[in-house]
């Protein structure tokens, strides 16, 4: 078997036993790898009647993309859980870095964790040798400490580790696993790993990746490498990384400041990527096989916030910068390093902190609710204290907030006799997942719909990040989308970001495209998702050269549709419906107050109609559930039968 490692590991934690299952080639061809594997495995293996995300019966699947370790631009491994502590339903998260390639070189396509270990353990993989080992000595260790200790114990500095920090062990909802500073952000998978008493996975693989058609791969490398480096956005991302978005968004009035109140932040330029690079950047670093190298290695040499680390994405510079009403970049970098080591999700917890500030601003909470901590805009010391309290579940405040911001809102509502809806309105979230630093009023209507319909809750990574990538006159100027589709999108008038009509086609395509990207392990920053050149055609060339199969880009797109439908069916089985596919209510009711985008708002009626057209285009019911025919056409007869048996199908016909 080329391309895939050929083996799935099933780790039964309760029995401390790991079983090797051969990978079924037909399954691999249909679901590709990574996210596709995880979603189908979890759909099949999880008893959806289990409602507690921290139940020992929850399942975690960790799969490298099928191109991980085989090609350039592909490093990502997908971490999925049957139930996320944040959303309560299926969730997943992607991690770049080096772990995915190493796992492939050891010969594995997936690791699925069932049950719960009695004591803290870690999984050690050294090519064929796979063992669950005692991790009691790692209890409470930070992510970086765990990384160093496990490499030392394996006597192999080239080994790769993903680990949870104290936050994961303490089952904090916003906890995530990381490989040092590279996070599997979103959906709180770290708390699920913690609930299973699984501290880390360490892997060393020396088998490498056999290539079916090496000469074809060499040609594909040359072509794609050139395309990537000559892309119009390459200089920006390779020099400044995603923090460059902050500079750009601020100039265009698109920055979500003060928890999406979008008021002006004084001296906001202090948080620009140019300041980050000039004052604290040492050099740019990259994930495996990546030419874009979008991460800064940064050092704050001295002062209260002396620190060092890597990453510092737009999500942290905005989430703890202007979105928190603050401009202290040194404090932001300090928080970035701290959160990576505690194993907390920057996107989720920045949103929690900024919601607290917003409640504080409007007099809904005070020191009596926060164990004495103050949540004013632009304040950093109390925020740092709060983040530690959350990670370690210290005090009532830390312990209650660790369960999630929505449950915390319920607690405050009860304590203060405030209607809970009033508090929840402040939280920018969809399906319970708090939003990254994009604004659904400003990033285009496709992006708004895509956030709404995302199968893992509010998400800029599930489909359309922003509609501006279509803002071109000629199809050949649109990056990473097959020419005939780009032409169709322009003919439909989709170059207008604020147009509702026709966006269903763009969103559905991008959702499927992203499902393929996540399943192959390609970095989204190399693709049309971020206005870059790698599209389904290039992905098909890579996959064909590596596996010896013959996918067309349309075949790949269909795989994406299949994977997306598995996830929609799974979420429908949990009870998600049309009402869960809407952007946060504030974006329909609060206009952007000032700046170049003054007055921007979502139109409820137009969104309703767009959502209906999107379901129709998807061939789903008017409640957003895949129909029997749709599932059957995608080769998902088993899921169609399952939904019928559970009477999910009849709903919303």
């Amino acid at each position: 078997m080329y391309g895939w490692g050929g083996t799935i590991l099933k780790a039964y934690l309760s029995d401390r036993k790991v079983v090797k299952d051969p990978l079924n080639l037909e399954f691999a061809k249909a679901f590709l790898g990574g996210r596709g594997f995880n979603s189908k495995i979890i759909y099949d293996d999880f008893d959806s009647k289990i409602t507690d995300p921290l139940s020992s019966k929850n399942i975690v699947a960790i799969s490298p993309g099928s191109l991980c370790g085989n090609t350039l631009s592909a490093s990502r491994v997908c971490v999925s859980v049957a139930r996320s502590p944040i959303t309560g339903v299926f969730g997943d998260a992607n991690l770049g870095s080096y772990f995915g390639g190493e796992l492939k070189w050891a010969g594995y396509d997936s690791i699925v964790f069932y049950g719960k270990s009695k004591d803290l353990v870690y999984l050690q993989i050294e090519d064929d040798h796979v063992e669950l080992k005692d991790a009691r000595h790692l209890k409470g260790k930070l992510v970086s400490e765990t990384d160093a200790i496990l490499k030392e114990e394996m006597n192999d500095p080239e080994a790769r580790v993903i680990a949870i920090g104290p936050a994961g062990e303490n089952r904090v909802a916003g906890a995530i696993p990381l490989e040092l500073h590279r996070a599997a952000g979103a959906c709180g998978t770290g708390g699920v790993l913690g609930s299973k008493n699984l501290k880390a996975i360490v892997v060393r693989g020396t088998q490498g990746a056999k290539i079916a058609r090496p000469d074809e791969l060499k040609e594909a490398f040359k072509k794609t490498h050139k395309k990537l480096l000559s892309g119009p956005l390459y200089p920006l991302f390779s020099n400044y990384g995603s923090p460059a978005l902050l500079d750009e968004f601020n100039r265009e009035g698109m920055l979500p400041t003060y928890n999406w109140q979008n008021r002006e932040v004084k001296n906001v330029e202090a948080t620009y990527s140019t300041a980050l690079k000039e004052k604290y950047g040492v050099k740019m670093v990259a994930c495996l096989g990546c030419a874009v190298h979008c991460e800064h290695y940064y050092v704050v040499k001295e002062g209260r916030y002396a620190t060092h680390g890597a990453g510092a994405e737009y999500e942290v510079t905005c989430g703890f910068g202007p979105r928190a009403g603050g401009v202290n970049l040194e404090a932001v970098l300090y928080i970035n390093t701290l959160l990576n080591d505690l194993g907390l999700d920057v996107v989720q917890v920045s949103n929690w902190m900024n919601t607290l500030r917003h409640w504080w601003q409007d007099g809904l909470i005070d020191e009596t609710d926060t164990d004495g901590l103050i949540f004013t805009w632009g304040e950093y010391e109390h925020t740092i204290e709060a983040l530690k309290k959350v990670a370690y579940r210290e005090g009532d405040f830390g312990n209650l907030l660790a369960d999630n911001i929505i449950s915390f809102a319920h607690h405050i509502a009860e304590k203060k006799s405030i209607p809970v809806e009033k508090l929840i309105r402040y939280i920018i979230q969809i399906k319970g997942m708090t939003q990254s630093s994009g604004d659904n009023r400003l990033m285009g209507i496709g992006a708004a719909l895509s956030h709404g319909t995302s199968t893992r809750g509010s998400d800029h990574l599930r489909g359309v990040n922003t509609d501006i990538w279509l803002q071109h006159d000629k199809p050949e100027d649109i990056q990473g989308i097959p020419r005939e589709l780009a032409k169709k999108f322009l003919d439909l008038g989709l170059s207008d970001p604020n147009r509702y009509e026709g966006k269903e086609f763009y969103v559905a395509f991008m959702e499927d495209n992203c499902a393929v990207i996540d399943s192959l392990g390609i970095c989204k920053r190399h693709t049309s998702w971020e206005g870059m050149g790698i599209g389904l055609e290039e992905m098909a060339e890579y996959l064909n050269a590596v596996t010896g199969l013959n996918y067309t880009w349309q075949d790949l797109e269909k795989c994406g549709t299949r994977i997306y439908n598995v996830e929609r069916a799974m979420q429908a089985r949990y009870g998600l419906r049309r009402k869960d596919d809407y952007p946060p209510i504030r974006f329909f009711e609060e206009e952007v107050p000032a700046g170049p985008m003054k007055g921007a708002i979502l139109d409820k009626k137009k969104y309703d109609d767009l959502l209906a057209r999107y379901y129709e285009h998807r061939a789903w019911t008017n409640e957003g559930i895949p129909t029997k025919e749709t599932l059957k056409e995608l080769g998902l007869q088993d899921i169609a039968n399952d939904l019928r048996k559970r009477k999910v199908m009849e709903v919303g016909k």
Partner: protein
Amino acid sequence: MEKVLVIYPDKCTGCKVCEMVCSLHHENEINPIKSRIQVISWEDKGIDVPMVCQQCEDPPCEAACPTHAIYRDPQTGAMLIKEETCIGCRMCVNACPFGGCSIHPDTRQVIKCDLCSGEPQCVEFCASHAIEYIPVSKGVLLKKRAAAQKLGELFQTLATTSTPYDL
């Protein structure tokens, strides 16, 4: 004109594309342990140093080889291995101060950089220009090597003395 590989660790992003394309070129597979170049990284300190044969003027590997299996390619200046003569004794691996020689895990023979017959793949695919293939005189070559080595050492000591944060 003879050319040499020059390494700039301060530009290296640690992405290992060089290892991937090197093993694909030489082995038709992707496997860093079969690559002729390796990036040694301390990711927590932001240090990445590509290690590869320097094609020395006075190669210790050649001197250490008991079967005279190592010779210079007159075209490119690369030190090459006569596979039929190499006995896999690893004397060259021990002698090389740069870790330029390694053992092929399957054949157990020595593998090392052959400059891809004058078109080094690592250079072609290095997006950050951390490896260059440039013509130089002997003197400049030695200087460059010394400078590259110093840069490597500099980055190793760069690890800041500050603690990342207080817990």
